[in-house]
């Protein structure tokens, strides 16, 4: 070697270590601790719920022998900490156990129900962002005038009207009376089971297969629940956008931009919204995360077989494997969205870059 490694002011290896490997390791440790904590809390809460899980499995009238046999088959006769260790040990190896309620491996259930929620939440968030952000911008720019009042009215309804009521009214008007959209469920019965799920997201699956009649049917089923959830997301996002924009519009750089003679559209969209977008991203990610947990009431009203219905059913029957599996999914979604919004944050805000 012609040069000594120690003489190098910055070792390429150590820079890699500091810039990428260490943060990645730190992230991994954080993730592991977060998941373990999540599991522990869910597990122990699940065990103090005053519901007998054996009852869900064998029914109210099973004989004593059957009851005891099932109790030990479920591992409930062991000490709590031991049950937890066994569960975590299996989960690490990718085995989340079998759901009592559906008789399927929990993982299979989640693969089936999560895409339904993902589809609904994604379209709802798109609606919320596409309508809510412009509405918020308009409300801020026209503060105190009618676009602002409109945004406030929408926000008020969004905060005060319960989602199941709005869902039922939506069904009554747009499905029962006007016939613009299809009713509860994800797809019409005649199409049910015709297409093997690839991604589980029906819009994607039908589009990939070129089944446009089915695509259209699925869209007609999706649009109402998505619009209702999207409405709540819009109500929230427009209020948040408005306040972020108002804050930016008061800043000196806006005055400077205007003095420089920039067109007003550019001042608002590029300068003000560009800066308001930074905190807005986090807000959008959180609202998306909330929808991805599965909206229980919306899923009930629209008979939408998603994660929310699955998790509630499992909780009420003390179907612990299913509850833990679904909680892990929700946790993963939140962590992933947080990471994503951190990443976007850095892209949008140069100050946040290392």
């Amino acid at each position: 070697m012609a040069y000594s490694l120690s003489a190098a002011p910055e070792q390429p290896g150590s820079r890699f270590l500091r810039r990428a490997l260490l943060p990645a390791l730190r992230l991994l440790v954080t993730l592991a601790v977060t998941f373990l904590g999540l599991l522990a809390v869910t597990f122990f809460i699940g065990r103090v719920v005053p519901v007998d899980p054996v009852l869900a499995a064998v029914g109210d009238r099973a004989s004593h022998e059957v009851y005891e046999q099932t109790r030990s088959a479920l591992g409930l006769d062991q000490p709590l900490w031991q049950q937890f260790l066994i569960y975590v040990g299996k989960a690490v190896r990718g085995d989340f156990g079998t759901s009592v309620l559906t008789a399927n491996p929990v993982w299979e259930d989640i693969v089936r129900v999560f895409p339904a929620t993902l589809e609904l939440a994604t379209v709802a968030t798109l609606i919320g962002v596409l309508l809510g952000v412009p509405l918020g911008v308009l409300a801020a720019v026209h503060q105190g005038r009618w676009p602002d009042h409109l945004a406030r009215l929408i926000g008020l309804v969004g905060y005060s009207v319960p989602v199941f009521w709005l869902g039922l009214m939506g069904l009554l008007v747009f499905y029962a009376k006007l016939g613009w959209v299809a009713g509860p469920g994800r797809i019409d019965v005649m199409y049910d089971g015709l297409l093997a799920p690839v991604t589980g997201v029906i819009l994607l699956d039908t589009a990939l297969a070129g089944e446009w009649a089915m695509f259209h049917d699925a869209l007609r089923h999706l649009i109402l629940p998505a619009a209702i959830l999207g409405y709540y997301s819009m109500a929230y996002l427009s209020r948040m956008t408005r306040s972020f924009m108002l804050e930016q519009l008061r800043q000196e750089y806006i005055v400077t931009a205007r003095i420089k003679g920039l067109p007003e559209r550019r001042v608002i969209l590029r300068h003000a919204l560009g800066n308001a977008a930074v905190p807005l991203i986090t807000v959008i990610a959180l609202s998306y995360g909330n929808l991805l947990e599965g909206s229980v009431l919306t899923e009930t009203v629209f008979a939408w077989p998603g994660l929310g219905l699955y998790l509630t059913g499992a909780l009420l029957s003390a179907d612990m494997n299913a509850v833990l599996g679904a909680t892990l999914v929700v946790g993963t979604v939140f962590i992933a969205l947080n990471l994503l919004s951190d990443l976007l944050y850095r892209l949008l805000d140069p100050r946040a870059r290392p």
Partner: protein
Amino acid sequence: MPPLRVRSLALATAVLLGALGPAAALAATPKDMVVMAAQLDEFITLDPAEIYELVPTEYAANVYDRLVTIDPADPSQIVGSIAESWTVSADGKTFTFKIRQGLEFHSGNLLSAEDVAWSLQRVIKLNKGPAFILAEFGLTPENVEQRVKAVDANTVTLETAKVYSPSFVLNCLASWVSSVVDKKLLLANEKDGDLGNGWLKTHEAGSGPFKLVAWKAGESVIVERNDAYWGKQPAIKRVVLRHVPEAASQRLLIEKGDVDIARNLGPDDLKALAGNADIRIRSVPQSAIYYMGLNTRNPNLGKPEVQEAMKWLVDYRGIADNILKGTYEVHQAFLPKGFLGAIDEQPYRLDVDKARALLEKAGLKDGFSVTIDVRNAYPSPEIAQALQANMAKAGIKLEIIPGDNKQTLTKYRSRTHDIYLGQWAPDYMDPHSNAQGFAWNPDNSDSSKFKLLAWRNSWDIPKLTQESEAALAEQDTAKRTALYQSMQREFQKNSPFVIMFQRVQPLAERKGVAGFVFGPINDMVYYSGITKQ
């Protein structure tokens, strides 16, 4: 000029709405398919040896055959199904069944006496939730191979431990748990000696008029006509049960014609549909009994005077008319109408003065406070509130504790409740199912192996227990009927149970749909006769 036009917002809205496209033609269900909106959250397994909830037994009734079935037109009549004929030995303990020849399972395998015997043995060996129905005959995993045998290819014998009323044995053999399963197919799918249970949870191995197409937990169950069925061919090709948890959603679906039958409508929905010419509503009596269980461990509730006072403090008629509105009717005996030995006497009505006098006699002139555990779903909270209002008139302060079904049941089974408000549905079409529930408690200790209703309310009843057992063994049906009638009268007078209502199932069907047989228990709900124009 405003820098940003409101137009941009309108444009975005238009783009979103445009994606919807023109509204498609009204979607009616296809002619050869019947779609039902139902609540399917209790579907947890498809194995008849494991099923114990209501709607799943109906699945077994349509996909599987049994040795014998109950005639839905006259529930006191047992008719042959897989069994062509049967005889009972002179000592009353051996039942011999002749099997119909040439029957086939959906798999194409031949159905023989061996399949029948193996199916019954399998229930006892698996020992799941509903095994108690057959275990009743004294069958255990150890003795079942001797007691249930295929004597030859067409003959099966069943030997009971004691003498039972033949109607009882046949009624149990007519229940879903006695469904005949395809031995060859199940053994081919057996894992770790589970007799095919793991596989059958999500598949089928039947010979019935319908075949399983798909079960998606929490979504739908789809069955299709078995074109090779030995008996009467079903008229309809496909039957789809869709899980629609919300009653109002069910109503909208049937109004639009997206479902043909709606099964879980509430009083408001029924009222709204009453004037609709496209929809027919009928009420079918069901076997579920709605009652209050008074835990006698509570010193006040243990007093006979208080128990009787409670029976005078229920506004039976008012609750039926104003809350239940056609979904339940007043009934005050533990056997539901339609069952052997049922009585329709209603000795109780709301009478606050009588109740007050009884409370005074019990030394509770100023009343007392007590809690009631109530399932958090219609109609229980509404009924509980009505009870609360009337009990207050006699000084009883009723505190309502709402909870999920399984939660209140867990508490009930641990005997830590004061009053339990809920339903009980018999498991099979025989009076013993309810007599055992309400009037049989062989061991009142905490370690009892039988935690049925009398036990749950700590009601120690050696005499009634004995009477229940005598009725169970009675060979003469007329005498058996009389025994149950006198037990019920005694029970009405003196018991910690306030029996109030019997379920009536309102069914909404689209015009043109006919022939849906809806028996008093889900095990007698048949799709074969359904036609659609």
